[in-house]
């Protein structure tokens, strides 16, 4: 198991470029922050929240396709993690442990919310225009790129919402967030084979849903 807190630079064939752009966090630094936070030091915990807020929020947003839900769930996950810090034994990294709390909370939320989903999507950032993968994909399809992107964004999110929670989580963590199979297996508390098979079926399903956009 690799520690996600480390700068990860190995070239995995399907690792997205964003994966490499992680902030450098020394493990000793993080262990110290966790130790202080366990003793009730809220400044230390504030630092931990700042380190992981964007990644946790993004995962939950991609799972829910709803900005407000993602915000609430992310805050609740951080609060729950603080309350449960005393039970954190350090067997895994803080990052994996935190992710597990957020993932479990989100899956429970989605199971309760079943069939009541309403998308509340974030805007695309300005860099999207320069993403080579998307430029190639969009320019072939639509002459009006803005309209094409908005439509694609909606269809993509609709397709994601059609997946089961577990399948959606694997696609989100691997294909969007760029986590390795091993990390996902640890977060979702299953074996790597299960992660691979879920990823395969999820991709197959999504390819079917988005067949009009993947010619």
């Amino acid at each position, binding site marked *: 198991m690799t520690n996600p807190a480390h700068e990860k630079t190995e070239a995995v064939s399907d690792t997205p470029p964003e994966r490499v752009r992680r902030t450098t966090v020394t493990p000793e630094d993080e262990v110290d922050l966790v130790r202080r936070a366990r003793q009730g030091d809220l400044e230390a915990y*504030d630092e931990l929240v700042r380190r992981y807020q964007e990644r946790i929020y993004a995962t939950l947003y*991609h799972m829910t396709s709803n900005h407000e839900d993602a915000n609430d769930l992310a805050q609740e996950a951080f609060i729950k993690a603080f309350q449960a810090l005393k039970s954190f034994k350090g067997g895994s990294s803080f990052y994996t442990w935190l992710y597990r709390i957020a993932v*479990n909370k989100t899956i429970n939320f989605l199971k309760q919310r079943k069939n009541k989903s309403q998308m509340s999507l*974030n805007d695309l950032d300005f860099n999207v225009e320069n993403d080579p993968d998307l430029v190639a*994909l969009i320019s072939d399809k639509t002459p009006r790129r803005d309209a094409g992107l908005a439509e694609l964004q909606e269809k*993509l999110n609709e397709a994601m919402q059609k997946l089961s929670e577990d399948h959606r989580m694997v696609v989100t963590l691997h294909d969007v967030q760029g986590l390795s199979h091993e990390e996902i297996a640890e977060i979702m*508390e299953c074996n790597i084979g299960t992660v691979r098979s879920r*990823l*395969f079926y999820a991709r197959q399903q999504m*390819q079917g849903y988005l067949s009009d956009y993947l010619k």
Partner: protein
Amino acid sequence: MNPESENFDQLRRLLALKRHEAPPPRYFNDFSGQVISRIRANEKTVPTGISWLQRMWASLEAKPAMAGSFGVAVCALLVAGVLYSTKMDVPVASNNLTEAAAFPSMGGDSSTVAFNQPANQAALGYSTSPVMPMAQQSSSSLFDQFTIKTVPASFNFNGN
């Protein structure tokens, strides 16, 4: 089954679009502040730390495997309890039969009626002696008062 062996390149390129969905600018400026404020507010409402029940609940929520094993343990306890109670019922039934077989020789009609009362079956399970005063046993029912009077009557008959 290897998900990388299939040709999902276009799908993965499309999924790259998801990475560009971002919350409004400066959205995260106050995020950690909100989390810390909520933690502080929670600490104020909980006066003396977290109770053992809350800690257990938190650990169960954080680890579904632990929640599952807790559920299995509770079910196992329940099943063990049921099995144990059914085992306890077997001697009760045999005792009841023994007593019922013994009574005709005693010739006490009123006692037989008393032993056949369903309300007294539990009491019989703990005492095979008809001499034992029923008043010593739990008497939560009004019917127990009735059996206190009938049991000694049969023994008076045998003694004569």
